[in-house]
């Protein structure tokens, strides 16, 4: 143990924010994407709402602290999806550690949130009986946050203690899943589209139909997240997924997926676990999430993400307080911290998803100008117009969708 070496678990993504993003920019260029530079729609007027003090200019230094943060103390437990925040490595202090330093709060951050349904099944026996769970903040995707709100398994956010919540992007205020906006703040947002390995496909991909091309039989994947897989396919069939109210409306998409699965076209349904297969060519083409591709593209520039011509789905992962969460004041401090554009920019620069915080683009431009021009991270209006969010479904309709989908995934 003579040398301090980079954390091997996150190491692959370490110290390469820039390099990785350059690669991705290249990959996107190759994919025929245009890069509408500084014209991204969101967050053009900067972090005016945040009174951040010292913008971090160089990685490795603490890029500023939130006002009034210090010295509160106490503890906090946030359970999030894996690889969803910048870690402390290579001399750069990760967001969690910067938060601890700035506030004196003893924060526990885990990455045990792997799948929405799985996580719901895990917390359901407790929250359903009115007992608290250990984490103070959890990160359900918007549709699950909606279900938790309807079940009354969430506490309201102490938004009066989160002044930076004013930085929330306008298009995410009072969203369909949380009409009053009292229960959730988005953590990151993004898109599901097509990810492919151009070495394996031998050509560039533009359309969802390519998923069903017999040429790729047995080398096609799809997400276990029903709303993304069915959403992307349904959009290619001309179905508007933002207005779905019955199962029959989406049935053609289920039928198409069923057929592809039965014929052996689809090799695997996957959650986050397609990096490896896509990179080594076991999967030639799959439905994937925009930010993930950055990590794969660093190892293998042949891996690319495209918005299909028929459009991509957009989604949001949220921060919510499960009912009975103990450390509410500390949770408010945390949300305030990560809604400071200076801090949020650090997260964005590492995870490569679309930040819900206004003013991040300007801060990212200081860290990495190329990233600030990336339409996957700062989408323009044209890009956004080509995306749809999945409609919130009534409980019994959702049950039909879930049953049909799990029958196809075969488990």
């Amino acid at each position, binding site marked *: 143990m*003579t040398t301090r070496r980079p954390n*091997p*678990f996150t190491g*692959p993504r370490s110290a390469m924010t820039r390099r990785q993003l350059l690669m991705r920019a290249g990959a996107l260029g190759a994919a025929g994407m245009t890069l509408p530079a500084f014209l991204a729609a969101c967050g053009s007027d900067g972090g005016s709402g945040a009174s951040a003090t010292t913008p971090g200019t160089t990685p490795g230094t603490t890029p500023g602290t939130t006002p009034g943060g210090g010295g509160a103390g106490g503890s906090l437990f946030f359970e999030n999806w894996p*690889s969803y925040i910048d870690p402390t490595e290579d001399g750069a202090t990760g967001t969690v550690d910067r938060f601890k330093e700035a506030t004196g709060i003893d924060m526990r951050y*885990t990455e045990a949130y792997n799948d929405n349904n799985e996580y719901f099944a895990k917390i359901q026996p407790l929250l359903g009986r009115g007992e608290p769970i*250990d984490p103070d903040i959890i990160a359900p995707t918007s549709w699950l946050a909606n279900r938790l709100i309807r079940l009354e398994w969430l506490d309201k956010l102490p938004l009066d203690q989160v002044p930076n919540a004013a930085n929330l992007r306008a298009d995410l205020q009072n969203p369909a899943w949380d009409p009053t906006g009292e229960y959730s703040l988005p953590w990151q947002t993004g898109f599901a589209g097509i990810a492919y390995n151009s070495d394996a496909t031998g050509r560039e991909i533009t359309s969802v139909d390519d998923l069903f091309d017999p040429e790729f039989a047995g080398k096609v994947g799809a997400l276990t997240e029903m709303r993304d897989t069915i959403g992307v396919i349904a959009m290619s069939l001309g179905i508007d997924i933002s207005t779905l109210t019955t199962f029959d409306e989406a049935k053609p998409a289920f039928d198409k997926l069923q057929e592809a699965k039965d014929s052996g076209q689809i090799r695997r349904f*996957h*959650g986050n676990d397609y*990096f490896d297969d896509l990179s080594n060519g076991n999967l030639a083409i799959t439905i994937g999430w925009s930010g993930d591709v950055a990590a794969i593209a660093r190892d293998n520039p042949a891996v690319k993400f495209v918005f299909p011509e028929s459009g991509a789905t957009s989604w949001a992962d949220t921060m919510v307080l499960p009912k009975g969460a103990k450390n509410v004041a500390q949770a408010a401090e945390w949300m305030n911290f990560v809604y400071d554009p200076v801090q949020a920019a650090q997260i964005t620069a590492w995870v490569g998803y679309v930040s819900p915080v206004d003013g991040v683009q300007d801060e990212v431009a200081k860290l990495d100008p190329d990233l600030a021009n990336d339409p996957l991270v700062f989408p323009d209006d044209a890009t956004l117009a080509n995306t749809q969010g999945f409609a919130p479904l009534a409980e019994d309709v959702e049950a039909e969708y879930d049953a049909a989908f799990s029958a196809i995934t075969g488990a």
Partner: protein
Amino acid sequence: MSAPSSRGGRVARFALNAYAGLALLYLFVPIVWIVVFSFNKPKGNYNVAWQQFTLENWKNPFSDESLTNAFVESLKIAAISTVIATVLGSMIAIALARYKFRGSGGLNFFLVLPLTTPEIVLGSSLATLFLDWNVTRGFTTVVIAHIMFQVSFVALTVRARVRGFDWTLEQAAQDLGATPVRTFWKVTFPLILPGILAAALLSFALSLDDFIITLFNAGSLVTFPLYINGSFRVKFPPEVNVLASAILFVSVALMLMGTLWGARGRRKSTA
């Protein structure tokens, strides 16, 4: 066996040996892969393609906090459950091997049942019990689950070992005036101890490696196998290979020590 008489016999003999050798080799293919890749310096999140030799992984196997925590949880669970299961299981084994008694056949059968029930049934049924009791699943429930399958395993393994044991020795000791308690600790226990230790070692390994039953009863607890399964979605770091290889080496060392110890014991008893 007598030497093969014909040339055909020799060929057949060689073919059979070669076949057996290949079968043995087959058993070792992934083991070799695991050990070799513990010395790899992977590119990317998955340690699955050979890049470059390095000792770094072995120098610093505990660099990831969550992996280390999961590993420590597994060790704690295995230690606690093995101690309890070994005591309970050995008691059963002694009862079954030492005494003839009414009902032994039925109890024997009952004891085998948990080992002939698929793990998924054991795991899911126990989880329904805890759900029914409104017990939050976590460390304690996993320990309970592990003891459940270890008890049968220890009992049957120890019983197999003490089956040939000469119980008249006990009688002799008591005839010489030793109390039953003294007889047990001075005569019986030392003789059956190697069998008990072997069973304990194996059931420790079973606990450390258990995935299916643990998955159903862990709640938000993360053990070593659960960590591997969960994190495989985003990474498969070489430290996992290091820890797996380390478990392998330690077990092999313990096994060798046990064999040597057993050999010494046999020499002593025949002397």
